[in-house]
């Protein structure tokens, strides 16, 4: 029992104690951002790796969470007035949609519930009609595209292309302070840890077995008396909720939310990250998000033009040569070592 939890505990200690002590504030902020992405990746690992639903529109849920949080932050700063971008956009009265977001409890619940509800509606519609595989992937991708257009088009409501930025405080804490950022980092890392454990529990439960069964033989599962559409919808909704929560955490950490963060490309990049990390293991998904996030930062700091090449090439290599990603390679190596030691 102890042995089983040892690796997780080690990582948790490093992440929660060592990282905040050792890293400079700027780098810690970056790590916090990667961990937000890792939460989304965890959801993708669940939906795609375990459930076989390749969702290319996870950015939509991330965005819903992020915008909910951003609306709350903007309203607390406006102190009864209008958020800055509405002033530029010529909006004279706070839109009704915005009003309840002044309440932090409402905003935070919407950050999770909004994505969940959207996922349930979408899932019910498409899974019940047995739209799956590539069709589902393309539909979610189109959803991401449509979402961006919608957000950009409603400038007075959403800040348009600019999105929302210029946040000052969260629950009375100055966001510019390093201590606040460190606290936020700890919250993000903690949330990721808890969600990781919960997801792992889910995957190892009988529900997890059912999910794998739905992935490998959706039609067969029907004849076992289950409604695969329900199983898929629930899982999709869970991954959407995770993405929403990640979005809500992302906003105070990074200080901006904009349509650029939830379009087709960022959604795909996260799927790539999961594939690179190893989609069949949850930890692989988390690892992939952190590694790819770091790689992107490092590469754009060194040679900007190379990033697309590297990302593309890395992906081709992973898909053709190591379809199980880093986790798969690690497993193979560990397996070899073990058998070498045994002989």
């Amino acid at each position, binding site marked *: 029992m102890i042995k089983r939890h040892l*690796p997780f505990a080690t990582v948790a200690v490093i992440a929660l104690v060592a990282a905040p002590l050792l890293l400079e504030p700027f780098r810690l902020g970056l790590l916090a951002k990667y961990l937000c992405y890792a939460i989304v990746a965890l959801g993708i690992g669940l939906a795609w790796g375990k459930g076989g639903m390749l969702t290319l529109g996870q950015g939509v849920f991330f965005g819903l969470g992020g915008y909910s949080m951003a609306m709350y932050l903007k309203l607390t700063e406006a102190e009864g007035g209008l958020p800055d971008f509405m002033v530029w956009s*010529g909006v004279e009265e706070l839109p009704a949609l915005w009003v309840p977001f002044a309440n932090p409890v409402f905003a935070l619940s919407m950050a999770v519930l909004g994505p969940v509800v959207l996922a349930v509606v979408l899932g019910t519609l498409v899974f019940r009609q047995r739209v799956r595989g590539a069709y589902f992937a393309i539909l979610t991708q189109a959803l991401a595209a449509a979402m961006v257009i919608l957000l950009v*088009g409603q400038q007075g409501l959403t800040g348009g292309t600019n*999105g929302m930025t210029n946040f000052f405080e969260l629950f009375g804490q100055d966001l510019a302070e390093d201590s606040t950022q460190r606290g936020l980092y700890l919250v993000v890392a903690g949330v990721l840890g808890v969600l990781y454990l919960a997801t792992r529990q889910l995957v190892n439960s009988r529900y997890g077995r059912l999910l794998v069964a739905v992935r490998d033989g959706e039609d067969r599962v029907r004849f076992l008396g289950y409604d695969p559409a329900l199983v898929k919808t629930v899982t999709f909704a869970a991954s959407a909720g995770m993405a929403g929560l990640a979005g809500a955490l992302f906003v105070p950490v990074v200080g901006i939310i904009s349509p650029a963060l939830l379009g087709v490309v960022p959604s795909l990049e996260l799927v790539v990250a999961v594939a690179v990390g190893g989609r069949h293991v949850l930890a692989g998904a988390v690892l992939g998000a952190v*590694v790819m996030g770091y790689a992107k930062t490092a590469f754009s700091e060194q040679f900007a033009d190379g990033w697309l090449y590297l990302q593309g090439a890395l992906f081709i290599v992973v898909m053709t040569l190591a379809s199980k990603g880093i986790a798969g390679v690690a497993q193979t190596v560990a397996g070899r070592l073990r058998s070498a030691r045994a002989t």
Partner: protein
Amino acid sequence: MRISRPILSALLVMALAACGSDAETAASSNEIKVGLLHSLSGTMAISEVTVRDAELLAIEEINNAGGVLGKKMVPVVEDGASDWPTFAEKATKLVRQDKVAAVFGGWTSASRKAMLPVFERYKALLWYPVQYEGLESSPYIFYTGATTNQQIIPGLDYLKEQGKKRIFLVGSDYVFPRTANKIIKAYAAANGMEILGEEYTPLGHTEYSTLVNKVMQAKPDAVFNTLNGDSNVAFFKSLKSSGVTAESMPVLSVSIAEEEVTGIGVENIAGHPVAWNYYQTTETPANEAFVKAFKAKYGQNKVTSDPMQAGYNAVHLWAEAVKKAGTTEVEAVKKAAPGISLDRPEGKVTIDGDNQHMHKTARIGIIQPDGLIKQVWDSGEPIKPDPYLEGYPWAAGLAGQ
């Protein structure tokens, strides 16, 4: 769960090693680091790479002339990747990690808005080189491109002089076109012009037959075009093939400069007017030198444009302010900057003390068959920047409260 142990360990080791590896490169005492932050990849790279080139040229010129305060300027170049959050992240890096004396960067309004909190929070300087929608005056940003009363309003004055009274508005769906059109509508109301329609398309939109149909049915005297980027190509191709000419229905654009003309196709756009503060053909001694130096450094087939020139100016203006202040310390530079006046390629440029924008001359040009732009109208003297349009009675209320 045996699997996850190596993976999890790898995860943290890599993350920590990676994040910590960026060792601080101490700036030696005879160097001054400045940041250049533009999109070098993604959709905006088309425009922004050349601005960076112009800024690098300015830095080279300054260093060749002995540097600033006897120190060499060392550019730290970062990629904003056409992604606003990345701009915020890289701006933070430049300010906090590299501790640069100033940052020259941005193109889109969105990238500026994303960077603004970073510069205000850490009290650092941003020099922003592109015309924009106004309604902003951050104490930590210097705006070397035009604000609305130096581009949009002169453009409207020009149309009015030409007797174009019925106008159709076409723009990409983002902040600049929407704000610009608000101003245009207020101007029109006050000047007896009629707005026949207002249409927006998503960025990157490439299907314009429906929109052109709407425009042609409305039969306007002129179109005021605030489309951005690739959309312009599709829009002008659609207009051309539908038989619209610059004589029958001129399209005044505010986001098309020398660089974009080739991609749109000269035959599709020749004859149409544009509004800027600078053209490659602008006749000043400083411009002659600038065009020559730019072509010598980057190739004879390169063209120069307004935003490039504004980025080039920004570096020189900052250097001048540092010289005057005797230090690169931000507050001192801010204090020294107002009133600095230089003869630049676009003519005389003066830093305004009230809002850190520039006094600039507005110029209307016509796109020529050779792809260059010929000036046909100018405002005579530099216009005082007025980002909130406080000096225009008809614009009251546009700036919000």
